[in-house]
């Protein structure tokens, strides 16, 4: 029998904190309470935007945020944005203050969870023990977190195992983190087993969600679907469950089910820009234009202050309006947001293309041509566009007599989308509508033929174990389709396997890194990308290269 001591008292004097709350009196009360612990270096923020800008300038040990921040923003969004932008790392303690009624929803967010919660009403002692608890845990995990962030995955795993074997009170936390490390390493079977082990102890939602993700990654889609359907049935507030379920359903070609799933997620938590966007995309694909309009509209209105808002969101909404013959609305979307769009070349491209397409559909050929020439200039300046936008651009070019440029655009899209029927069909429809259907087949055939052949050959060679020739072939395919994340990842995967086996092949290393960087920038959430990044790090380490994280490209269209 042991006497339990009060939690270790931490030295708060050397720590810095940020308090985020929209009520001045509450901020003051937090400040007083923290001062009583000895923590005097406290900054305040009244809004999400203020908090983000503070965190950009200052590093804090502790962040305390109220969940309700007013202005349609909440503490969970603040946390996600800070993590997403890399403004806070695993070493920062994040304490979320919630009302009991939202607590469950916040807990259910599960994936990007705060370190702990403080439920109102609370007192100074509870606040103190929560903070002590977080800091003690951070200290225990410090080296594991450092190893993880430095890409020393094996060391991070060993650290977790130590805690698991040592019957620590962080046993479950260690298992949870180990699951994340294993997934990041692409060791999905082991991660799955680990989650099953937790579930055998208790079927906690996060472990079931983790298991479902590993099933998805192992392409065991029906199992993942079944698990997730039960999970969100039991925990309707588990919003990340809907996201994953929808991804699984899309991969199973059940896009109508995916739409229903996303709709439920959006109803549960309408603020998420990404979820609304996904709902819009899936509905659009299902030709449910009404739902697509609602969702894309929500992205633009709710995303006003969100870092996730992208120029493409305006194109999506504008496109839906054009589709339903509401040209003036389509134009308004662009015009009302002109100043924001003009802040980046991507935004400028969206503005010119959608305005040009509007004019083209109205039959104002000269106007359309003027905008398309502008759009082509933005492209020359390096403006990136989603394939859907490039097809819009092709259509407007075609309608304004810029046939050659249209064909070039279609060819570029097709080269990067030999495996996407949806995009290729869309290209064909555009040409058919212009009465030029026969011309485009040849363009598409020429553009896709080589990539398709190289991909197939490369896959066959890899299967046969001829990694040298498979790598050569797939790297060629990647050069042909530099914007197709699947092609890039296939090439990277095989090349990494080759270098793993034969250190003499290290000449491919730089190219592979570039491919992965590109793939990651195009499809940051692709389920395979994490595993590939880890593999890259391992191979680089093995070949004696210092590994650095992949680079995010270009200035993201952010706000101050």
């Amino acid at each position: 029998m042991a006497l339990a001591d009060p939690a270790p008292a931490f030295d708060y004097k050397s720590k810095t904190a940020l308090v985020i709350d929209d009520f001045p009196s509450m901020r003051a009360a937090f400040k007083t309470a923290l001062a009583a612990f000895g923590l005097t270096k406290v900054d305040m923020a009244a809004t999400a935007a203020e908090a983000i800008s503070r965190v950009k300038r200052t590093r804090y040990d502790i962040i305390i945020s109220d969940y309700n921040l007013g202005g349609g923003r909440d503490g969970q969004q603040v946390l996600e944005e800070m993590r997403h932008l890399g403004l806070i790392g695993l070493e920062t303690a994040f304490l979320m203050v919630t009302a009991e009624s939202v607590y469950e929803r916040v807990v259910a967010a599960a994936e990007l969870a705060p370190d702990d919660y403080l439920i109102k009403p609370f007192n100074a002692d509870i606040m103190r023990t929560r903070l002590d608890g977080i800091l003690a845990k951070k200290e225990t995990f410090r080296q594991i977190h450092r190893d993880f962030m430095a890409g020393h995955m094996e060391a991070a795993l060993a650290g977790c195992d130590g805690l698991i074997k040592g019957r620590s009170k962080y046993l479950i936390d260690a298992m949870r983190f180990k699951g994340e490390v294993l997934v990041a390493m692409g060791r999905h079977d082991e991660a799955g087993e680990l989650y099953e082990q937790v579930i055998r102890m208790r079927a906690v939602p996060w472990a079931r969600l983790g298991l479902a993700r590993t099933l998805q990654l192992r392409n065991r889609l029906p199992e993942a679907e079944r698990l997730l359907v039960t999970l969100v049935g039991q925990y309707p507030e588990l919003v990340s469950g809907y996201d994953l379920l929808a991804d699984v359903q899309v991969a199973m070609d059940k896009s109508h089910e995916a739409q229903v799933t996303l709709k439920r997620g959006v109803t549960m938590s309408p603020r998420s820009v990404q979820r609304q966007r996904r709902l819009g995309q899936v509905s659009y694909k299902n030709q449910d234009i009404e739902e697509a309009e609602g969702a894309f509209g929500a992205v633009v209105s709710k995303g006003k202050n969100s870092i996730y808002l992208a120029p493409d969101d305006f194109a999506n909404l504008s496109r839906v309006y054009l589709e339903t013959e509401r040209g003036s609305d389509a134009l308004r979307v662009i015009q009302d947001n002109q100043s924001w769009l003009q802040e980046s070349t991507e935004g400028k491209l969206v503005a010119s293309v959608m305005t040009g397409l509007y004019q083209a559909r109205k039959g104002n050929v000269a106007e359309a041509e003027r905008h398309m020439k502008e759009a082509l200039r933005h492209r020359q300046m390096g403006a990136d566009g989603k394939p859907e936008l490039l097809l819009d651009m092709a259509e407007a070019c075609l309608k304004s007599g810029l046939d050659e440029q249209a064909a070039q655009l279609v060819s570029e899209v097709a080269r990067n989308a030999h495996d996407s029927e949806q995009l290729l069909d869309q290209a064909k429809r555009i040409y058919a509508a212009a009465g030029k259907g026969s011309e485009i087949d040849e363009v598409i055939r020429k553009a896709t033929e080589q990539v398709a052949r190289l991909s197939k050959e490369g896959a066959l060679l890899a299967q046969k174990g001829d990694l040298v020739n498979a790598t050569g072939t797939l790297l060629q395919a990647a050069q042909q389709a530099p914007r197709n994340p699947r092609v890039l990842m296939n090439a990277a995967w095989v090349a990494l396997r080759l270098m793993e086996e034969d250190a003499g092949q290290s000449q491919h290393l730089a190219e592979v890194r570039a491919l992965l960087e590109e793939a990651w920038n195009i499809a940051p959430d692709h389920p395979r990308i994490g595993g590939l990044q880890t593999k890259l790090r391992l191979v680089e380490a093995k070949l004696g290269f210092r590994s650095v994280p992949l680079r995010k490209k270009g200035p993201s269209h952010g706000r101050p």
Partner: protein
Amino acid sequence: MDDHDLYAALLHETKNHLVLLTLTLDSIPHTRQDAHDAPLDAARLLGHKVAERLMQAMLLYKAEAGALRLNAVNAYSPEDMVAEMAQQARSLAKHLEVVARVDADVPPIWFFDRNLLQMALMNAIHNSISYARARIEVRAALSDGMLALSVRDDSDGYPEHILELTAQGLPLQSNGTGLGIRFARLIAQAHRNEEREGELRLYNDAGAVFEMRLP
């Protein structure tokens, strides 16, 4: 704004004010002079009790038909729980001896809803602060495969009618005292693991013993 929104807004405001009040009281230093410290401690205890009643009211609102669903079960350390509860007791009752105990066979983690469990235990602690003569013990033990978290004091013990009340398992909605205890029972029962259900045990053993048993 419909009635529901209004209700939510009022509740939100009340909670915020209660937090402010509590933090303000907590920030007033003790002076070691009874004329100052005694009313301060009384006020702090009252603040806690108001908060407790408010949480019970919200729980009642949620627990339709007497059933309570747990959505936030996770792994927590029983030892931390005991330490945290003992700390609460110490800080509210400087005149009492507060002991925290964790039996050697208690596992490092157990699965429960920390928030609800805390609410139940705090109710017991508030009661013990009112009734104990000199001593309160918060303890974690393992009993029949269940985690037993208990609050024990050296009071005269529970009156007979309260012990009967728990024995009979009266429904939440019935009138009379014992509301805190009924909530605790509800919370205990909501904890399930496979076929087993949690339970609240109240008994007298040289004082009152309040024990939450969790599967």
